[in-house]
């Protein structure tokens, strides 16, 4: 338990770990027949590796890393469309830093910028709106991506653009939602998952009710969790206890931040600006019904798809093949570990990512590379 000393409260962590071992034994889970728990959120994936929770917990528990890293599930075709937009002469293309390194079919946004496109990294969509105010003769496009934790920020920014009449601002909307891919994974006959650790900050916006189907229709436990190592361990224990007791419920370990009903202002802004797309493409997972959002016709002025006739809005959404031999799809769905990919640590590293799972610290491959560390890379070589 070498990492336990790093915990704020090592004694509490030891207590929870002992209880986790006990309940794992009661379930009868072993290394050969483990309980498989998916942490949905990429932030949790990162924390699990950073604190070595996968090593601290018994062999009878296997963590499956879920699809909750927005840049990791971004298809190459959408990156290509960003670059098409960014290379238009009048456009200033703005994006969160994470998304700038995601490889498209030809290049990333960062490479397009190096070749002369006006691409700027911003911290907030509000920065992009301010850029539009200061550059009235240019079109400022913001690349809106992310789950429900980020969606309210672009919705509120679009509302503000309309209120303040900033008409040279638009959002290239690639927002996605958490519940549909979970349903897709649960419907996949190759996936066997015993329970979920639910995302904290997404749930702060959407609340707990959107997860009811996981417990009620699929009979699986889900526990919404915070980001401290102790939060994660407690949540795993809550999932295990449900499994042991034959219960399937939506529980909230992170109640100090996540209200059961979510955040009403955020939800109202999302509902005002966005509508659900019939389907949306996810890297590694394919098309998933009702899993993406688009801007309502009422806000067409602020919709880059409609303004520039690009992307899903133009019916040009095109599937682009993934790099040869890469295992992104299998890693994404928890079928194989990153080290099983032939590119891991060779053609694909955090410095020069081939697949999106290597781009962000929340991606499973990057987390393995960083903390599974030298050993994982050695094994791969």
């Amino acid at each position, binding site marked *: 338990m070498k990492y336990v000393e790093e915990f704020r409260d090592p004694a509490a962590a030891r207590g929870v770990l002992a209880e986790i071992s006990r309940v794992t034994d009661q379930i009868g889970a072993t290394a050969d027949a483990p309980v498989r728990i998916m942490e949905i959120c990429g932030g949790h994936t990162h924390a699990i590796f950073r604190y070595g929770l996968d090593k601290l917990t018994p062999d009878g528990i296997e963590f499956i890393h879920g699809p909750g890293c927005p840049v990791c599930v971004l298809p190459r075709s959408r990156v290509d469309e960003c670059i098409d937009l960014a290379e238009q002469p009048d456009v200033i293309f703005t994006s969160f830093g994470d998304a700038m390194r995601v490889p498209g079919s030809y290049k990333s946004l960062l490479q397009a910028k190096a070749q002369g496109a006006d691409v700027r990294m911003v*911290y907030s969509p509000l920065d992009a709106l301010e*850029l539009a105010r*200061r550059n009235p003769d240019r079109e400022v496009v913001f690349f809106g991506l992310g789950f429900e934790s*980020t969606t309210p920020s672009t919705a509120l920014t679009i509302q503000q653009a309309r209120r303040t009449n900033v008409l040279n601002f638009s959002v290239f909307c690639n927002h996605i939602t958490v519940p549909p891919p979970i349903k897709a994974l649960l419907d996949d006959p190759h996936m066997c998952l015993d329970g979920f650790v639910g995302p904290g900050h997404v749930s702060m916006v959407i609340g707990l009710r959107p997860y009811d189907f996981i417990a009620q229709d699929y009979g699986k436990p889900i526990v919404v969790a915070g980001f401290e190592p102790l939060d994660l361990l407690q949540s795993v224990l809550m999932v295990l206890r449900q499994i042991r007791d034959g219960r399937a419920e939506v529980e909230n370990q992170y109640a100090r931040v996540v209200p059961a009903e979510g*955040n009403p202002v*955020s939800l109202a802004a999302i509902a005002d600006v966005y509508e659900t797309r019939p389907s949306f493409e996810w890297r590694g997972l394919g098309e998933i019904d009702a899993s993406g959002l688009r801007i309502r016709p009422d806000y067409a002025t602020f919709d880059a798809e409609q303004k520039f006739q690009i992307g899903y809005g133009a019916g040009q959404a095109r599937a682009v093949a993934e790099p040869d031999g890469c295992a992104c799809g299998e890693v994404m769905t928890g079928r194989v570990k990153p080290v099983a990919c032939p590119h891991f640590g060779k053609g694909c590293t955090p410095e020069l990512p081939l697949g999106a799972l290597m781009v962000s610290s929340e991606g499973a491959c990057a987390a393995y590379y960083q903390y599974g560390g030298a050993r994982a890379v050695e094994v791969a070589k």
Partner: protein
Amino acid sequence: MCLGIPGQIIAITDADLMMAVAEISGVRREVNVACIAEGAPLETLVGTWTLIHVGFAMSRIDEDEAAKTLDVLRELGEAQEVLDAMAEGAESLRPRR
């Protein structure tokens, strides 16, 4: 990129657009407070600790929770990432050409 960072609201700058200045790990920047306003007069938000995500205050938290969250974010390297992103965002706003 989905993790929020704790910050403290220190002044209201535009009540109409729900904008305020927050101090985030020693750095000040303008944030939107619509999601935590809940109909109360905005001035009452001054001093409040909140989780800030991409320029939006998303949830009220207490000071102790703020300190703990910040520690975890520092350990994960996320706190510095956010501060770098804020600096880069400010840089992007500067006129060029």
